[in-house]
């Protein structure tokens, strides 16, 4: 097949747009950096290495801040979190071979969660490609299934435009990760060509406004609904549609359930908030989605952790599905009305099409009854080990309401979902679709770099924290004021919970007979460490850790018997959630 036609080139857009201190374009690598500057990139995360050295050399003269991470996976997660919190694509860099493969987990994570990430990977010189050269891997081949698109840069003249295109594609429409693989001869090669402004290719044209006829059908359906529910997904946050969602729900009095990525999309202290649904969602959220007759799903993809078994998911509901990605509509749950478009735009279209408010006082009352029937509560007697829920609530109370929460993956993540009150979009940063243990700390680094003035709290489990705790070195080096709360139950707790429920309590490889003293581990890295065993130490320690100007780690020795409830078993019926182990 023929070579890629030269990308269109917008010279005007870059004239006079040079960043202070930038040097003229002389090589492919300087063009790459100029493209990043032109796209407004202020920070990137990465790890040096042989094949990416020309790019780092060009970065030396740039005003772009580079945060050196301990591991490339950390760089990808930090860039991912930066993208979630700031709304602009996060950038990560890695060298060829092991550098690129270490990024793979982070890119897969970003792909599952539709997070905007640009990865620039070094590659062996073009002449060596395919020869199994030192530190060579087929990066575009490896990352094709886990990126929105990827590029193999072919020449020094066009490489800047390719990076710009990767940037534009990543951040527009349904966001997602993109990769540009940069052979060393391309970045080292001579060019004087200024990259144009970032632009998407002509074949890429996401539809932002939903079809009018569909909007009309959806509005008529909502108007006559008796038990309507809005299911808000992560797309509400990505599309900056939280205000539109709040206005719409309040205007028509429709209860709002969120998916996990949508925590913060709708204020959880709002009367209409039913909070998170799904496997570990609240009882009332799961009752609401199971019994509704019309579901307006906005920016969600009906993941199996949300739906449980599709046969029993909202079985009486007509589904009105708004999403910017047509492929998500009727993929897992058949939509009765497809509203292809941007979340905010579709909500505004619907609002102007609605002629009346649905008459649903009984349903609203029913939702409040469920809230009273299935409260999220726990007992916390003094004489037992600390309940993890208590720790989450203690940190929530001690921090401002716009504090950012990041988490790893496991039981601690679910407690952080359930017992923290999310009121604002872009304050919840977690690994949803891929479920990447170890996501929390590098994500906290990315979040803090994006929002240095906000409090950042990272919840980790002992198992999850051990997967990326080396990134503490970065938090210390960059003096990032983040607080890590390790909910330490000396186990991979979620696995152990499943073993209790489904494997007759056979704890194969899930109990950790020994875990490090995380307070001492923190101190070895140069961070502040704390250990907490008793209830009466919690408040003071939280205060001290938050007051410490720099990274701190609190090792909370929590009740090892604590499990996460409510719970819908995998593939189960959301309305049949278990409130305790004996209901499974």
């Amino acid at each position, binding site marked *: *097949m*023929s*070579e*890629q036609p030269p990308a269109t080139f917008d010279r005007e857009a870059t004239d006079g747009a040079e960043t202070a201190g930038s040097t003229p374009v002389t090589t492919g690598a300087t063009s790459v950096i100029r493209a990043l500057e032109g796209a407004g990139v202020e920070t990137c995360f990465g790890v040096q290495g042989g094949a990416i050295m020309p790019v780092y050399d060009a970065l030396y003269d740039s005003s772009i801040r580079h945060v050196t991470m301990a591991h490339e996976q950390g760089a990808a997660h930090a860039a991912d979190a930066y993208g979630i919190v700031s709304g602009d694509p996060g950038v990560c860099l890695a060298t060829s071979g092991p550098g690129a493969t270490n990024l793979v987990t982070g890119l897969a994570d970003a792909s599952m969660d539709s997070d905007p990430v640009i990865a620039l990977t070094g590659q062996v010189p073009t002449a060596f490609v395919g020869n199994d050269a030192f530190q060579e891997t087929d990066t*575009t*081949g490896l990352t*094709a*299934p886990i990126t929105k*698109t990827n590029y*193999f840069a072919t020449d020094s003249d066009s490489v800047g435009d390719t990076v710009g295109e990767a940037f534009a*594609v990543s951040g527009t429409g349904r966001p997602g990760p993109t990769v540009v693989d940069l052979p060393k001869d391309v970045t080292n090669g001579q060019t004087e060509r200024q990259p144009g402004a970032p632009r998407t*290719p002509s*074949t*890429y044209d996401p539809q932002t406004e939903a079809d009018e006829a569909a909007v009309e059908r959806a509005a008529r359906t909502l108007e006559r609904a008796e038990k309507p529910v809005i299911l808000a997904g992560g797309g509400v946050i990505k599309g900056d549609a939280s205000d539109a969602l709040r206005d719409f729900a309040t205007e028509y009095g429709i209860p709002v359930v969120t998916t996990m990525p949508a925590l913060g999309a709708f204020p959880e202290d709002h009367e209409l908030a039913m909070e998170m649904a799904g496997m570990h969602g609240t*009882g009332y959220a799961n*009752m609401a989605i199971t*019994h509704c007759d019309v579901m307006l799903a906005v920016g969600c993809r*009906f993941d199996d952790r949300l*739906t449980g078994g*599709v*046969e*029993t*998911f909202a*079985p*009486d*509901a*007509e589904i009105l599905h708004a999403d910017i*990605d*047509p*492929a998500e509509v*009727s*993929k897992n*749950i*058949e939509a*009765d009305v497809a509203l292809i478009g941007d979340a905010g735009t579709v909500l505004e279209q619907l609002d102007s099409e609605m002629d009346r408010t649905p008459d649903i006082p009984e349903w609203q009352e029913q939702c409040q009854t469920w809230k009273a*029937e*299935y*409260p999220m*509560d*726990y*007992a*916390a*007697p*003094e004489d*037992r080990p600390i*309940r993890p829920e*208590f720790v989450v609530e*203690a940190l929530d*109370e001690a921090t401002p309401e716009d504090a950012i929460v990041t988490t790893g993956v496991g039981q601690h993540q679910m407690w952080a979902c359930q017992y923290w009150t999310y009121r604002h979009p872009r304050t919840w940063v977690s690994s949803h679709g891929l479920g990447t243990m170890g996501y929390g700390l590098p994500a906290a680094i990315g979040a803090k770099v994006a929002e240095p003035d906000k409090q950042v709290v990272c919840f980790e489990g002992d198992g999850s924290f051990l997967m990326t705790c080396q990134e503490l070195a970065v938090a210390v080096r960059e003096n990032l004021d983040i607080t890590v709360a390790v909910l330490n139950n000396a186990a991979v707790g979620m696995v152990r919970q499943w073993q209790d429920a489904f494997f007759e309590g056979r704890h194969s490889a899930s109990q950790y007979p020994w875990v490090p003293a995380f307070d001492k581990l923190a101190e070895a890295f140069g961070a502040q460490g704390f250990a907490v065993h008793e209830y009466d130490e919690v408040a003071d320690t939280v205060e001290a850790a938050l007051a410490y100007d720099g990274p701190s780690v609190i090792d909370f020795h929590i009740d090892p*018997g*604590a499990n996460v*409830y*409510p719970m819908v078993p995998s593939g189960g019926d959301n*309305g*049949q959630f*278990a*409130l*305790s*182990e004996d*209901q499974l």
Partner: protein
Amino acid sequence: MSEQGPQQVNRLQGPAPEDRPRPSGRRNSQGIRIDPEVEAEPVPRRTVISALVENEPGVLAKASGLVSRRQFNIESLTVGTTTNPETSRITLVIEEPEPGIRQVEKQLEKLLPVISVQELGENAIQRELVIVKVHGDEPDKVQAVTEMYDGTVLDAGPKTISIEITGDENKIDDAIDAFQQFGIRELARTGQTAIARGDVWTTDVEEERYERMHESWQTTTNND
């Protein structure tokens, strides 16, 4: 925060699952709401999908990788350039229930180098090529069968005869059956390629692209 009290630890309050009301409806495994009056499961359908794609490196790998990782039930996939050297046409024959067919289309459209995707109707022109290599013991009979299927002998030696047959899938299957009597040593099939019949463009954008290419071709010739 929760009050410290005599509640049982690890147990949330509320009616047990069996004490809760249940909705009456049901969906099938595709997530489609089932009308209990007419329980009908979708049946797989065999169809041809045509995708016009940019001719850039890796586009075929992207398309075939997509098909395999999403577990679409694919019968054949062919690819070749079009009138415009910058584009190729990928033809997929798939067998899927209705939602699966729509998913194949939508997922293909998500690939950036893909310009347009269209499912072809039943009357699309479909052709496949096969080369059959049979044992050469009975050349006269081989010749007769070849003529019956409008085939062409590509190579005839003392031990083997190779024949080319072109046609729709049924014809190819029948021809292969007919050649079995001589003993088929090897065969190679291309898979179906297809194009819309009559004055219909195969995918949405092709007319516009054709006009544009035609215009620029005329401009170039006039300048000469």
